[in-house]
């Protein structure tokens, strides 16, 4: 069958979401909530279908193709066009983004229906879907880009959408400004990362003369031999961009705060798609990293350290979404470490499976939160109960069974229990670590243990035991439009391991067409067994510690770990005071400088100079005005004075 014609459909993956956006913009408000939600979800679903068609076409010609679309920049020797790159790597990303994205869109119809009523502004429903479609379009631009410049356009676009969606309820949040501050934090932290990516792009252009992937990666070996430091700098600056976008150390601080946005946003952007853009970037540039071992080490250790660091924080959090946020950071650390070690396929595999179960966990958490809101409303507890605080929950598996089961599946997948998806992807990463980088392996194994522990803790605290507040017993299940996507994602979490089942290695063969000879995404049964043991250990420990501490009205009682771990626990609970450190080191001095420049410098000096000029002119005018007294004789006198002066001068000369 002639499938190559499918390739020309690729611009539609960007433009159909844009069309959906336009339709919602013009007609959405008038035609109601259901219409807006259906249009947006259909647009994303259509993108998904097109991605499938592209995948089918690639099956026949797997080496990929570049579809030219538009001329963009042509200045002297610099050319950057808007071309679409259809190869196995980009199509994998497209499938993930559009597939998970469309499920989340459908979920959002039900979720936002409740959320706009809970927050009191029904007219904002359409705006949400407009932003979401914009995000899908931008993400598609990112993954289908053929050169660094278009990638950067998409990179910035998703950053913008992240800002818009985090601050969706911009007037709410702590002190009426908390959400807006979180959005600002995300944008600015991302901006620091973007600076790194930009510098890397400048260096690439300077040394390679072009920004096209094909040109640059083909010429990489020569440049590496001629200027090894340049390539090191390029990769390190790119790493800075990755730490910003994919929330690694040290620029991860925006992601926990980003939980201020609605839950579907957290699921789509901050679990499944935007944050994976960094991993995608490193995977795409694997040609660079393969040539600079020092950069590879840097990337690996950034990822591994982040994985462990974030896992420790997740253990002590009480907000349901914060646990998942730190879990995301930790899992991204796994992915980054994987691509750093050269196990690009393992990293991409984990990206795919993680998007399934993390999106599932977030969406299910959203369902839990809304169930708690309904419970609070029903029991008239009102705003005293924070529906996101896990200490208020307990025993919810009786109230919201569907959500419980999908959450359990997602949690176990995250922990890495066989035969769920997380098991296979995580163990491929651990196997790659065990093969060459033992220290990294130890760190990642510890992080995996903590992963199992904190997710077990979360599940026990929410669903088992007895309710700890008045709202919990009255929680009720969410509607079908919410639970059905959850079930689909749960199914994907169960079956996701098939994408790269050891031995069959579908994904590895698929990606090899683009990435070339990568490290074998191997699977060591010994490593797998050990990690499975660790996971079971973690879950069991969580059950032991938390399974018995759930009496009613005992929210004030300290977390059982507090007594056992003491100061260590306090550190974990306070996120190791990183935000405070950044405030002390960077934000406060910057504020002080800005304040100084604004007050004494701008107001005092510059304004005063301007005002002084005005006042001086006015004063001069007032003084000069006294000469105009209307008396002709005094005018004549002044003329005479002048005459006398001139004459005197001429005489004395």
């Amino acid at each position, binding site marked *: 069958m002639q499938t190559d014609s499918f390739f020309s459909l690729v611009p539609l993956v960007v433009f159909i979401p844009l069309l959906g956006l336009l339709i919602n913009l013009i007609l959405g408000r008038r035609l109601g909530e259901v219409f807006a939600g259906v249009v947006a979800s259909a647009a994303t679903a259509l993108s998904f279908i097109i991605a499938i068609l592209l995948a089918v076409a690639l099956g026949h010609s797997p080496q990929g193709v570049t579809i030219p679309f538009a001329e963009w920049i042509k200045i002297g020797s610099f050319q950057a066009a808007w071309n679409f790159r259809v190869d196995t790597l980009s199509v994998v990303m497209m499938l993930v983004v559009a597939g998970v994205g469309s499920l989340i869109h459908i979920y959002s119809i039900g979720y936002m229906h409740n959320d706009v009523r809970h927050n009191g502004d029904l007219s904002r429903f359409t705006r949400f879907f407009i932003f979401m479609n914009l995000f899908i379009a931008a993400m598609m631009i990112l993954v289908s880009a053929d050169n660094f410049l278009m990638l950067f356009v998409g990179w910035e676009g998703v950053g913008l959408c992240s800002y818009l969606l985090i601050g969706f309820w911009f007037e709410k949040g702590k002190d009426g400004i908390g959400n807006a501050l979180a959005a600002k934090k995300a944008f600015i932290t991302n901006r620091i990362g973007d600076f790194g990516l930009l510098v890397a792009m400048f260096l690439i252009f300077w040394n390679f003369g072009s920004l096209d992937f094909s040109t640059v990666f083909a010429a990489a070996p020569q440049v590496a031999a001629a200027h090894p430091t340049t390539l090191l700098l390029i990769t390190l600056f790119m790493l800075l961009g990755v730490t910003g976008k994919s929330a690694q150390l040290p620029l991860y601080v925006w992601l926990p705060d980003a939980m201020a946005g609605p839950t579907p946003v957290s699921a789509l952007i901050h679990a499944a798609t935007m944050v994976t853009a960094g991993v995608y970037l490193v995977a795409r540039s694997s040609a660079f990293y393969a040539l600079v071992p020092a950069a590879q080490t840097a990337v690996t250790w950034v990822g591994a350290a982040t994985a462990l660091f974030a896992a420790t924080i997740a253990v002590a959090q009480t907000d349901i979404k914060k646990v998942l946020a730190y879990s995301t950071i930790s899992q991204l650390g796994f992915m980054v470490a994987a691509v750093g070690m050269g196990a690009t396929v393992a990293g991409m595999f984990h990206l795919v499976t993680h998007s399934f179960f993390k999106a599932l966990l977030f969406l299910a958490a959203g369902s839990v939160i809304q169930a708690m809101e309904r419970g609070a409303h029903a029991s008239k507890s009102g705003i005293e109960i924070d529906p996101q605080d896990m200490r208020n929950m307990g025993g919810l598996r009786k109230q919201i069974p569907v959500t419980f089961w999908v959450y359990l599946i997602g949690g176990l997948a995250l922990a890495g229990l066989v035969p769920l998806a997380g098991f296979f992807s995580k163990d491929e990463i651990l196997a790659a670590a065990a093969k060459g980088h033992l220290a990294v392996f130890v760190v990642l194994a510890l992080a995996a243990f903590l992963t199992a522990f904190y997710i077990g803790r979360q599940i026990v605290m929410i669903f088992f035991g007895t309710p700890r507040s008045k709202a919990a017993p009255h929680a009720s299940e969410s509607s079908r439009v919410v639970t059905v996507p959850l079930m689909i994602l749960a199914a994907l979490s169960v079956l996701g391991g098939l994408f790269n089942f050891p031995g069959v290695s579908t994904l590895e063969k698929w990606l090899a067409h683009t990435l070339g000879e990568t490290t074998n995404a191997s699977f060591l049964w010994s490593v797998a067994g050990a990690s499975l043991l660790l996971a079971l250990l973690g879950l069991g420990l969580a059950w032991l510690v938390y399974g018995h501490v759930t009496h009613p009205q005992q929210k004030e009682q300290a977390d059982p770990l507090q007594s056992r771990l003491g100061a260590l626990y306090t550190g974990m609970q306070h996120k190791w005071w990183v935000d405070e450190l950044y405030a002390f080191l960077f934000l406060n001095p910057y504020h002080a400088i800005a304040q100084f420049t604004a007050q004494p410098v701008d107001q005092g000096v510059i304004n005063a100079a301007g005002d002084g000029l005005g006042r001086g002119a006015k004063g001069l005018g007032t003084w000069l005005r006294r000469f105009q*007294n209307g*008396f002709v*004789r*005094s005018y004549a*006198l002044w003329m*005479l*004075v002048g*005459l*006398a002066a001139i*004459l*005197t001068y001429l*005489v004395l000369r």
Partner: protein
Amino acid sequence: MSASLVVFLILAVIAVAAAVAMLLSNNTIYSALYLIMNFLAIAVIYLTLGAPFVALAQITVYAGAIMVLFLFVIMMLGAEKFSEKEPLRWQRPVAIVLGLGLIGEGVYVLLTRIGTQMLSNTATEAMADPKALGALLYSKYSLPFEITSILLLTAAVGAVVLTRGGKREEKQ
């Protein structure tokens, strides 16, 4: 000390005295009359300098016509006495200082820088010939002559228009 010098000195003293008297007099009519005396003295000086036509023109036009016009207007408006309060405090002292300074300066410059080498000439027939003056007026200075005549016409018409317009307003 030649006779012409004595004559000149007498005339100069008369002229200056008349001028000072004009300035100091409270009565406007007396000021006008003093000015006429000044003009007459100057006219005689013109005579000694060999310009009889100009001298007579001075007497006729200046003393005869212009000063008479002045006298008409003075008498029409009434010679007034104003309050002696000077609204501009520094006016009088500064003006006097400057005026005297100018005089002193001018005379000093003249006598020291220019010196007394250049001497005037005795009046001769050739200098005083009205025929030659007329020829000059109508040949070299014909354009200024014509313009001056237009100027006079304009002045006459203007004076009439100015005063007549006011009359009409008053009637209304």
